[in-house]
């Protein structure tokens, strides 16, 4: 316990100082949320590259939570869906249902090139389409995988902080 305490003392704060708020228009519905966005992550057919980056976006260094975004366990608790990967045939219906389970007002963030336009998987036989073909998308975050900074920037568009 003492060693842990010493480690905490030695490490101090690792979160980087917040970059300036990104400009660009915020989705209208995000304004209602008032600086608090609960996020449900849906893996619609990703290679898990984006997941790793999402993980670090909420890690101590980038600290997505400081902007008022938080990952939650149920779409009922969520305001936004964070969808990664191309939407596969098997995940198309679950994605629709997850979207339906979220109480309004709700937003969808497509993370990564696959989610935006199917990326390298475009035209593959198991692919039902990009996220916007299945559910309405409000924010898109490009990159394969997108850097944590980009993900945090996208989320800050929702929280406005």
């Amino acid at each position, binding site marked *: *316990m003492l060693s*842990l*305490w010493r480690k*905490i003392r030695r*490490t*101090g*704060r*690792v*979160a980087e100082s*917040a970059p300036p708020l990104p400009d660009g228009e915020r989705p209208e519905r995000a304004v*209602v*949320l*008032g*600086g*608090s966005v*609960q996020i449900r992550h849906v893996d619609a057919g990703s290679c898990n590259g984006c997941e790793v980056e999402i993980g670090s976006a909420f890690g*101590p260094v980038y*600290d997505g*939570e*400081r*902007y*008022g975004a*938080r*990952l*939650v*366990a*149920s779409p*009922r*608790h969520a*305001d936004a869906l964070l969808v990664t990967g191309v939407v596969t045939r098997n995940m198309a219906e679950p994605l629709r249902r997850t979207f339906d389970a979220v*109480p*309004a*007002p709700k937003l969808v963030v497509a993370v990564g090139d696959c989610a935006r336009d199917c990326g390298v998987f475009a035209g593959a036989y198991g692919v039902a389409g990009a996220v916007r073909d299945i559910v309405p998308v409000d924010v898109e975050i490009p990159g394969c995988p997108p850097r944590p900074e980009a993900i945090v920037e996208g989320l800050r568009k929702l929280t406005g902080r």
Partner: protein
Amino acid sequence: MSALGVIGGVVQPVLIVAGSPLLVGLMRQVRARLEGRAGAGVGQPWRDLRKLLRKERIAPRGTSEVFRFAPLVLVATTLVVAVVVPFVATESALDPVADLFAVVALLALGAVALALAGLDTGTAFGGMGASREMTILALVEPTLLVAIFALSVRVGSTNLGAIVSSTLHDPARVISPVSLLAAVALIVVIVAETGRIPVDNPSTHLELTMVHEAMVLEHAGPDLALVELASAMRLSVFLGLLANLFVPWGIATEATPLALLIGVLALVVKVGVLGGLLAAGEVFVAKLRLFRVPELLAGSFLLALLAVAASFFLA
């Protein structure tokens, strides 16, 4: 019903309702800082609640009024406790309800309402959460009552006002083994009842490790706001109870503005410090396996019983 009691009965619930989300924010902030993060700020839980109130209500198919009324009952039980327990003033607005057993039973009633709501959804997770919550509740009850027994035996009453004033009059009691053992037992119990680490992890995303969260997976929008508010309130009520049972100093004994102001400040400071300590402690421990929890509770039961034993060992 005295003036002091009435004022306390108005000030306390307002303070608890307004302050408990801030307490949760404070605890998250402490954790964030210890983990090297920046944290979302103390006001974040209030922002979450404001947003949840603006959201849509959802009635999952096949659920009955039990599901809909549970959050109301949960908040209401905690609110009654906030009114009657001497947090700010020694006198209670409803003295015949300010009994330790009644307070404990009221808090249990809230938990039961939520467990029934979890069962009412008919989902596997709801049932699982309810089952675990009830198991923990059943095991916590003996510790809680025996600890109360230890505290009330020397006062000769289970009335909270009486216990608090007697400690005020005889400060030496606080450092007796009875108090210390009972305090440790109560801390373990409070950790279990409010679903904190190591019994339950309030920020888990994995359903299989959930206790409290699993029951509320179906609640959305304003209902969820009530549930979140209630769990924050329960936390501050328990911490406030702990603080005033063992360190009641600062509490208002007369109905003057200054005394009341000091009472409010003292409560805020005590609960804030306790919450901060609890949050800091959580950084150092891992969550227990569910089936190790009884061991923890058996230990706290033993401590509570030792507290009783000490009250006549060392009398």
